[in-house]
């Protein structure tokens, strides 16, 4: 990469100031449903929100999706090779899965989308949201205990 790897600052109304470098940016070539025009995101962690992390849109700082990491072994169905093709070549360890989480008032209720996980190739820094081919998986499920 020829770009200078200088520290940049992402100013988010939800997450505060986050310093990052160009290498941290994750590209979603197709955007994600609801935000199809957005392409560049950061994965922002905040220790006090663990285990949740945030998929924060560089182009629209008010957009930050809470994500809950999903262990690959717990996935009911794996996305097809075709569905993951836009992410490029990857070893199994490089692929990370996350459920989009809707956090209710005071975080008393947490709903997760198990039908359409966010999938990120940590090697190529490419991501997408896949819709799993199992119609029994809920789009809005109470968070699994």
């Amino acid at each position: 990469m020829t770009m200078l790897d200088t520290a940049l600052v992402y100013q988010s109304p939800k997450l505060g100031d986050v310093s990052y470098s160009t290498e941290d940016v994750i590209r979603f070539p197709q955007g994600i449903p609801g935000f199809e025009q957005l392409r560049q995101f950061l994965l922002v962690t905040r220790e006090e929100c663990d285990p949740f992390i945030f998929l924060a849109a560089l182009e629209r700082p008010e957009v930050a999706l809470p994500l809950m990491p999903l262990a690959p072994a717990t996935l009911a169905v794996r996305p097809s090779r075709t569905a993951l093709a836009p992410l490029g070549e990857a070893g199994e360890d490089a692929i990370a899965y996350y459920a989009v989480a809707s956090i209710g008032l005071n975080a008393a209720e947490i709903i997760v989308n198990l039908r359409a996980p966010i999938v990120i190739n940590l090697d190529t820094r490419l991501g997408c949201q896949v819709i799993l081919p199992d119609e029994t998986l809920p789009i809005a499920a109470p968070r699994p205990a």
Partner: protein
Amino acid sequence: MLVLTRRIGERLRIGADIELVVLDVRGRDVRLGVSAPSDVAIHREEIYLKIQDNNRAAALGQPGLTDALARAPRELRRRKPEPRAKDGTQCARRSAR
């Protein structure tokens, strides 16, 4: 909207590399086959719309979201809550302070 009539087995081409074929028609059901490059996502519309709504609600939700998460008791956030006795006191296996 462009409206075209096709028979079973006939195709439509959209641009240079997307192909739509009518596979079967049974009563009110139509089976379609789609061939498209791997970077073109194909979804049933009603599912796609639900996921759009869900993402928007999750992303643009309440202000003070991170504070709410930070304040939430850890057992609400962790995958495995600490075991608690029914009356709400800590289980014996946690050492008393």
